[in-house]
């Protein structure tokens, strides 16, 4: 019966249509997942951003751009944006340059390449919440090893995570530690893709020493990798949340308040989901713009196809 149906149906579809159908069928699970888990929630967030919805309150009302107008005058949000910029300004360049340096060092080393790669990559695969607890102990003002060392040397012992002078720097240091292994691995992949002959050719053309080799061959050929690493580092730094939530909760007095933490506070502590959605939307636009801008503007200058 089913066989008969199958043979009866077949002639009606051409081979090309069958292939297209199979393609769609294979894509279906991923498409459903993308729609249900990403696209629809994002659209819902976009809609919420234009309402005054509060968790547990009456039905939301459409308030147009009022949430965005609020954001312009919100002092807490301004602090949060400034802190986030400062954090990104420290973490992104440091992890790009640091990762490049590490990659060059590890690549140049004759032995232990796998070992060092694993050591520096470990923070990337470890759970950042668990690692935050370890950092909390390391940076503990009275019983932490770091301050014990400083005390033994007769140096001042800052309250790393609870003073508004040092809290952002401490968080940034943890951020660099988390990101540097990732950028290192990306750069190492980029380095192995550079053809050896180019170094030989450079030597023939009179390039002397490591600096010349780096300046004339390595750096230009790492262009596409560098672009990718810069963008991904910016986005990763912009996304800082775990360490803030575990270690400082935005304190003291908003000194470590960052965008995602503000968004979380507004939505889930103060229950203003509409406003929180508006912040999320702005965040999303910034991230997308960053990626689009970087790729567009820099793509032409770094492409060596």
């Amino acid at each position: 019966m089913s066989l008969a149906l199958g043979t009866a149906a077949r002639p009606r579809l051409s081979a090309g249509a069958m292939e297209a159908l199979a393609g769609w069928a294979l894509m279906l699970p991923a498409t459903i997942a993308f729609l249900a888990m990403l696209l629809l929630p994002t659209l819902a967030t976009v809609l919420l951003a234009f309402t005054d919805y509060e968790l547990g309150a009456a039905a939301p009302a459409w308030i147009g751009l009022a949430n965005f107008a609020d954001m312009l005058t919100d002092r807490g949000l301004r602090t949060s944006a400034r802190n986030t910029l400062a954090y990104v300004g420290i973490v992104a360049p440091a992890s790009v340059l640091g990762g490049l340096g590490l990659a060059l060092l590890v690549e140049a080393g004759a032995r232990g390449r796998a070992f060092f790669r694993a050591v520096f990559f470990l923070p990337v695969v470890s759970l950042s919440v668990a690692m935050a607890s370890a950092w909390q102990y390391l940076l503990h003002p009275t019983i932490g090893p770091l301050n014990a060392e400083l005390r033994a040397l007769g140096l001042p012992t800052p309250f790393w995570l609870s003073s508004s002078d040092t809290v952002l720097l401490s968080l940034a240091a943890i951020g660099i530690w988390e990101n540097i292994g990732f950028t290192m691995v990306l750069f190492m992949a980029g380095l192995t893709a550079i053809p050896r002959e180019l170094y030989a050719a450079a030597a023939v053309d009179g390039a002397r020493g490591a600096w010349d080799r780096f300046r004339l061959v390595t750096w230009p050929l790492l262009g596409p990798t560098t672009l990718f690493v810069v963008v991904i580092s910016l986005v990763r730094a912009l996304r800082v949340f775990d360490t803030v939530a575990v270690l400082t909760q935005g304190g003291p007095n908003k000194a470590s308040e960052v965008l995602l933490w503000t968004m979380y506070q507004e939505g889930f502590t103060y229950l203003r989901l509409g406003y929180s959605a508006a912040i999320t939307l702005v965040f999303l636009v910034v991230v997308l713009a960053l990626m689009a801008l970087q790729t567009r503007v820099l793509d032409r200058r770094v492409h060596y196809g």
Partner: protein
Amino acid sequence: MPFALSRRAALALPAALAVPVVRAQAPVTITVHYAQPFIFKESYDAIAEAFAKREPNIRIEWLTTPNYEEGMQLILRQAATNQLPDLSYQGFNRLRLFAERGIAQDLLPLLRAEGDPAALGYTPGILALAHFGGFQSGLAYAASNPITYYNADLVRRAGGDPDAMPTDWAGHIRLAARIKALGDGNEGMFFRWSGDDWMFSALLFGHGGRMLTKDERDIAFAGREGLESLRLIDAMVKQGGMANLSTQAAQQAFAAGKLGLFYWTTAVVRGTIQQVGSNFALRTGPMPVIDAAKGRLPTGGAAGMLTARDPAKRDAAWKFLRFSTSAEGTALMVQNTGYVPMNQIAIDDPRFLGAFYRDNPLYTAAVRQVPISIPWYAFPGANSVRVTQTMVDNIARVVEQRATPDQVLPDMAAEVRRLLPRRA
């Protein structure tokens, strides 16, 4: 006569049989939510076990959240999707929000149906702890108040007497300065001002002050009591050498024997005993007294609020709530947490907790402060949680010595005033 009796008995028989048939309801399953299982799980398990013996037909499904905040989010989310649990234990200061958003139900009629509340152990003071939004929105389950934890070894080394601690802040601050002077990374004191406004209200209420005016139209903390409270925090930093620690860092330093005096809730007494182990001689005591006559302390803790709509479930959930706050349930709660009993019978009748307190003196500091404990003030309106954060942020300026109490108080007053509901 014998005939009449037997005939009456014969008539009564079906009725007598029918009564248990009618009263033994079909099995009911209720969902009960509570927060902070690391503090409360053992107490609820013990109570549920005793409850199951009385009400074998009521089954309980548990729902827990790591903290009160997520507990609040859960209930608000479930309310939006009509999937509320039947009973939820929430932090005292969140109850007002549920009362104002129409999620909590009035429990007084249910309580009255069982007789005089006071005779059941629910005195007016105990009922007041969970009276929000103008009605009895919950029943207090576990209560805490702030106490002093101290390291008797450090106190002794600094020349103090652990058996005769100073009773006022001036004495405590001097002692803290001497402990800090021992050096070697020792810290004198930590007053847990961060996180929420609870400990600040301990100072404010200690001066006899209050957060808002009686009609809740304006702030009332911007006067002398509020200023003196901020000055006390300033003195803790300036004279007591109080370091700017996070709560966790302070707890860790205390457990490691590097912090002399630590002021926080009695709720962590059990956890602190476990953390400290045999590192040093741990003691607890009352909070330093500010105003012996007018001074009060805030009450923290949890209250059960009824959220069931279905009559059978509502009835069963009420039975569990009643049992968990009865003298018997309260006694189980106390022995399995660090909280203070919330049923007057359990407090007064030594049969319930007398032996426990004799064997566990560290738990008694908070009990002795019950007579001066008043409800944790919850701010009205949609911004209640934000008000709390605003106060904490401003206190941070004093702790970090970025501003003087005289500068901070007006800022704090203005910022909080903006967040109060506007009324005609």
